[in-house]
């Protein structure tokens, strides 16, 4: 599936919920399905700065597609990163670089996009795209 198709699938899933509590509960569930980062990569250099909770992300390229793994010490943050990784993992670097991220708004998580220091979503997206740029350079 393309990034766009996965994003639409996520939007459809979240559309089933009537209130924030169900959305948050689902996000917590998604957090539990997060492809976890190998403990060896859970080091300071893989921490995303700008999050109140700790977020580690690792990326590797397999057959010209990027595979992301991650972890966080906060459950909700884990859910957010799980959603992002579901959309971006196993995709070509160029598609990740070009991907639109407004689906976050569509699934009712807009507050996580606000540029407060408490929040790491913006930094997370930036970091995933940075990995993509780095791997794209390798391909070129």
């Amino acid at each position, binding site marked *: 599936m393309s990034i766009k198709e996965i994003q639409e699938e996520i939007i459809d899933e979240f559309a089933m919920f009537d209130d*924030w509590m169900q959305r*948050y509960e689902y996000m917590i569930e998604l957090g539990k399905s997060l492809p976890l980062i190998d403990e060896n990569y859970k080091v300071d250099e893989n921490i995303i700065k700008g999050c109140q*909770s700790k977020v580690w992300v690792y990326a590797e390229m397999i057959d010209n597609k990027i595979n992301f793994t991650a972890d966080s010490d906060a*459950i*909700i943050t884990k859910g957010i990163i799980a959603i992002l990784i579901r959309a971006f993992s196993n995709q070509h670097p160029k598609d990740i670089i070009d991907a639109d991220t407004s689906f976050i708004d569509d699934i009712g998580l807009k507050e996580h996009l606000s540029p407060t220091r*408490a929040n790491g979503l913006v930094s997370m997206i930036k970091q995933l795209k940075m990995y993509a740029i780095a791997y794209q350079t390798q391909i070129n």
Partner: protein
Amino acid sequence: MLDIQKIREDFPILKRTVNGKPLVYFDNAATSQTPTVVIDAIVDYYTTYNANIHRGVHTLSQEATDAYEIARKKIQAHFNAKESHEIILTSGTTHSINIIATGFTSLLQKDDEIIVSAMEHHSNIVPWQMLCERTGAILKVIPMNQEGELRMDVYDDLLSQKTKLVFTNHISNALGTINPIEEIISKAHQYGAAVLIDGAQSCPHIKPDVQVLDVDFYVASAHKLCGPTGVGLLYGKEEWLNKLPPYQGGGEMIDQVTFEKTTYAGLPHKFEAGTPNICGGIAFGVALDYMNSIGFEAIAAYENELLEYGTQKLLEIEGLKIYGTAKQKTSVISFNIDSIHPYDIGSIVDKLGVAVRTGHHCAQPIMDFYKIPGTVRASFAFYNTKEEIDLLVDAVKRAKMMLS
């Protein structure tokens, strides 16, 4: 007895809803809310007499200057400074601390010692570290115990003839501990060291008397005292302020300027370069009038009631641990539940209309001391109620249920 319902009428923001729920505002240690009298003063300034001060001969400028200087006198009276020129209006506590930390550059020598407490806000750590880098002075730290109280026995050992400056907060923003500043000040003075007290967290609860305290520098921010952001206070004893060089150059702070040499204005203007936050200063004075009309003794007594009630109710939640259990503390409750991340709890209770602070509260050394990533902090003001605390407790229980 305070009429809390009547007081709440003074704060229009308390009527709003957040995420469809009535707002419960428990982030008062970060900033207090603003009463209508202060909002009106701000509107009145920009509507009727907005002008630059101290220079203009026209009527508006004179009115604005008078209002600004009346505010300075109100601040002087509130803190009981001996002279009104010992009150420097700044942009806030951080600015005030930086004026002193920069000024001491020329007064310190290599291997001089300065002492800080272990429970400071970053704003009362970093400027002094920078001072040490510039001068070669050494930073010593008064440690704290598990309850979040300063180890005064260690303080005694740290003090020596080398000590030039001691700086600590009056009340810790992360723990609520009220520090024994009288003792800290008098002991430092025995060694001839100057003392700066960061009153950012204490001023909303306690009315300090700088002459009785015999403190050398006292700093605070208006926005924690029902005033606007961007304005604060630096109190300094006249003899100390005269010893320190100006912090910034510019207009307002000069006596004579030629390209060969400039002489500086006297106090307080020496430290007030540029056009100040005129409206903010005036509104600061109005905020102090408002707080005094309620009365600080009544405020402290009521907030203590809220603290006791909140502590008791929150501790009923299984797995909840409070950080900062000093015998002397103010209405701040910092807590965690089991190993749940404070960010998770903060996010959920916000959805329920409750505003708390989460994170390290700009006091990372305290979090390192307790080996935690941060806490959830609820801080109460005199316009909060026990019913609101019940809503907080319900919200925290709900968060715990969702996150466990």
